[in-house]
């Protein structure tokens, strides 16, 4: 009992804690996944947004180039004469070089029949293969504003050559903004989709170079080769700069500081990075997004530090668990202390009763001694005195048994029950007890019917047996007075492990209910109120009796009534191991 309570309390604490911890961890993990997912989506959309910005940039360039090409065509009456084209190249900051191919695939610019400057020579050298296959620029083209138009990537000839329209959603979107911005050129706009055009991305000079081509109304192909350094510079300018690392950061609060985004070129080099997070080079990007044509093979990489939100989530869970554990523990501690206090008080009571019993024992012994002496000395002709003395003697005996019970009980609690074997006859012990009880029981109009068949000489503890019988009989006296008879049967039987003695005590009182029968042997338990009303008792007798019987390697049980239903009452069967020879100590 003493050890069970803390264990029970521990279970009460840990079970809810474990449950809560389990749910908390699961919830937290789920939450993290959700957050990570959301973050991923956010990052993706952010990167895609950048890609769209780039696409828009290309689309605006495309618009501009088409207008400029149309203007060139008009100015030179479709001849693309050298002077104006060179002037155009000189003035345009975004393009490096231009070329014009006639409908038959001949090169019109850079001119074949005129001296070329260094840049033009280099360019011709670089694009020799590209320009030799003019069919590249006549591939079927999808209308960039058509509903069904999808971004098309047509691979022609070598793998590194790609030509495609910009994805139509972007094209459509920026068309409006471009038109709104350049109203003066609205007359040129309606003809835009009519002419085939596209972007080519190709590798030259150890880098990706972009060419925009457009076919004019006469079948000439006009190509604009971008200045790649300038293109990168423009792209960088589309991207935000980093926050200034000082206290006055609120000025730049739109720039987030917990991430680092890198624009990586086709050679895998970082072309530009922004954000505020400084990170070690070994870290892997949280996400990468390849850019759309014509910047294919470039990509954006998003780096971020570990999520601080997740840590606070775990922290919250841990704090909650700790708080709960503390609460439950203190509650359990209070309960445990209360329980202990009660136990201590009970113990103090028992000790007190014990001591009182001890104190009572000596005077009682004297009372009994002198009563006996007086009985012997008293002449027989004084019946009244004899009778009074008899009552004194039996009451003193009862008190003595009570005290003996209390002392045995407390001794049993303290140091366990011990049994001392002596040789004797069971029946003679029973007869002594019966003789002792006869006057008491007859005062309650009860008579004992003793049928003794345990006559064999054997080893047993007569004091224990006496005490057991005393308890059983005094119960009969207290509770079964209306039954008129108490039957005691004793017999002996040879069992595999030696001789056993059996004693059955049966009364014909009101009996006990089934529920009471279960608890009858528990200390301090007394049967139903109806039964115990007006009857004194300590509630330790039966328990003590059973303990003694068990110490005697036997048992005391309440027998189920198999006798006729008319008769009520209780029947106890006492079993004792009573070996025939030699004292066996346990």
């Amino acid at each position, binding site marked *: 009992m003493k050890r069970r309570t803390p264990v029970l309390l521990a279970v009460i604490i840990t079970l809810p804690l474990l449950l809560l911890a389990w749910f908390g961890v699961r919830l937290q993990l789920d939450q993290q996944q959700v957050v990570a997912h959301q973050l991923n989506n956010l990052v993706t959309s952010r990167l895609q947004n950048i890609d769209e910005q780039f696409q828009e940039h290309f689309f605006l360039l495309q618009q501009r180039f088409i207008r400029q090409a149309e203007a060139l065509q008009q100015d030179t009456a479709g001849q693309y004469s050298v002077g104006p084209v060179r002037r155009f190249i000189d003035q345009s900051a975004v393009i490096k070089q231009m070329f014009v191919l006639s409908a038959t695939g001949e090169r019109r610019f850079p001119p074949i029949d005129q001296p070329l400057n*260094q840049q033009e020579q280099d360019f011709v050298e670089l694009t020799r293969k590209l320009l030799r296959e003019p069919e590249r620029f006549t591939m079927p083209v999808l209308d960039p504003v058509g509903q069904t138009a999808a971004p098309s990537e047509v691979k022609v000839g070598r793998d590194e050559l790609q030509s495609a329209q910009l994805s139509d959603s972007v094209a459509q979107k920026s068309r409006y903004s471009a038109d709104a911005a350049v109203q003066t050129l609205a007359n040129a706009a309606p003809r835009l989709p009519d002419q085939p055009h596209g972007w080519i991305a190709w590798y030259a000079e150890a880098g990706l170079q972009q060419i925009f081509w457009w076919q004019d109304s006469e079948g000439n192909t006009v190509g604009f080769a971008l*200045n790649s*350094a300038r293109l990168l510079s*423009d792209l960088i300018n589309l991207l935000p700069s980093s926050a*200034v690392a000082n206290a006055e950061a609120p000025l730049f609060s739109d720039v987030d500081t917990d991430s680092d985004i890198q624009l990586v070129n086709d050679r895998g080099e970082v072309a530009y990075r922004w954000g505020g997070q400084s990170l070690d080079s070994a870290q892997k990007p949280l996400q990468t997004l390849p850019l759309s044509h014509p910047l294919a093979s470039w990509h954006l990489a998003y780096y971020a530090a570990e999520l601080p939100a997740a840590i606070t989530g775990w922290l919250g869970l841990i704090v909650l668990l700790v708080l709960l554990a503390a609460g439950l523990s203190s509650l359990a501690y209070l309960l445990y202390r209360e329980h202990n206090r009660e136990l201590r008080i009970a113990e103090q009571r028992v000790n007190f009763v014990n001591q009182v019993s001890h104190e009572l024992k000596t005077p009682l012994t004297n009372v009994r001694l002198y009563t006996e002496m007086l009985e012997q000395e008293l002449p027989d002709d004084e019946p009244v005195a004899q009778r009074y003395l008899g009552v004194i003697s039996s009451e003193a005996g009862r008190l003595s048994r009570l005290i003996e019970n209390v002392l045995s009980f407390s001794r049993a609690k303290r140091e366990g029950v011990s049994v001392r074997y002596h040789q004797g006859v069971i029946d003679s012990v029973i007869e002594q007890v019966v003789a002792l009880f006869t006057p008491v029981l007859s005062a309650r109009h009860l008579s004992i019917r003793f049928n003794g068949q345990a006559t064999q000489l054997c080893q047993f503890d007569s004091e224990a047996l006496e005490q057991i019988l005393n308890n059983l009989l005094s119960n009969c006296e207290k509770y079964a007075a209306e039954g008129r008879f108490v039957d005691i049967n004793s017999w002996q039987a040879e069992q595999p492990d030696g001789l056993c003695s059996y004693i059955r005590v049966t009364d014909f009182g009101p009996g006990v209910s089934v529920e009471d029968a279960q608890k009858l042997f528990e200390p301090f338990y007394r049967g139903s109120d109806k039964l115990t009303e007006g009857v004194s008792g300590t509630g330790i007798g039966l328990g003590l009796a059973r303990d003694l019987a068990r110490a005697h390697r036997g048992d005391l049980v309440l027998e189920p009534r198999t006798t006729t239903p008319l008769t009520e009452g209780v029947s106890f069967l006492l079993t004792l191991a009573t070996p025939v020879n030699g004292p066996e100590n346990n």
Partner: protein
Amino acid sequence: MKTQSDKPMLRRTVRTIGFVLLSLLPGLSQANQVNLNINLATPVMEADQRHRAFIKVSLEGFKQQDQQARIPANVAIVLDKSGSMGGDKIQYAREAAIMAIKRLDERDIVSVVSYDSRVQVVVPATQVRDQQSIYHAIRDVHASGNTALFAGVSKGAHELRKFLSRNKVNRVILLSDGLANVGPQSASELGELGASLAKEGISVTTIGLGLGYNEDLMTRLAGFSDGNHAFVENAADLASVFQYEFGDVLSVVAQGVNIEIHCKNGVTPIRLLGRESEIMGNRVTTRLNQLYSEQEKFVILEVEVPKQAAETELELVSVKVAYDNLFTQHQEQLTGQSMARFSGSAQEVEAARDDKALEAAVEQVANEYSRDAIEARDSGDLAGAKKILQDSASYLGSQAESLSSPRLQEQQEEALQDADELETNQDWNKQRKELKARQYKRATQQTY
């Protein structure tokens, strides 16, 4: 200047000026006109002989009337704040930038961009009104990280574009002390960017600090956009360099100068000394981004002249110059030509020599030698490089004597010293930076 060839030229100039005067608003003084001078180093050549001749085409900015009437500036200062700039360097750089900005006033636009691995816009393009807050922002720049030079220049140019105008002096001033290691890092890529910016009227001045930067990249970037370039070994000198630079910026009188030279009568162009140029057939074009008040900028064209009979006159080249006059805010044109006379008399040839033009030509030729020497040294040919420098020195020496020019003598000593230092082979890195900066300065007639 009393040579015979001066006469037609003078005529020509006077005619041009008259034409321009007519075309301009009445009352505008001649002082607001860029001066074009075309000088043939050898106006009289020996007959019946092929010649190599140097033609000096020089432009001189007119005098700025007064400080109040100057052209507004639109300047982006791009500061390297990479880890190597730590300590004194960044401190000097900050103070130099602040000192320089002090020269600006409300008419001007300034922006400050700093870069390490990333780019920060320290001061977005703004009118120079609340100077204290600009200084405050600059003083908050601290050094750390890598060198994203390309992105820094890009963002600087981006800030300029917010107020980009042909009527302003648009300039990025880049300070760097290290190799670009984030983003594009080759000289050619930066050169391409510079060329593109030049087309928009933006020039980039590059200031290399210490011994860690890439001088090829820096001179290329400056060269393609016609900005200045300076090598500053000691950070303490930054302030004065910034002052010179801002002095230049604030004295610009003309921009977007296109020079087109046509060779005539069988004369063929060989090379244009000093500047990036385009030679196509008999046409040579080059451009200068800026002309400064009372400063002469010139190019030297080397041509080959075919044999001619004695006592003939020949027009060698005609020159067309177009530029934006910032003062009148008009585009203006100048034209000129160069005539040569052929004579059998060596004395006449000797007497007619234009010493000043020849001196300039020799200076540029020697400068080319010096470039060749760097190339030779780069390819590991120490002896070859030294030989080139020594040849250059002896060439300079003989010319200095015949022209009795102390300037060329000085350059000769420089070349000899360079050759010696090349020999010691110590600290080539520093010498190379010095050489590069000096060459650049000579080629572009930079004032500091």
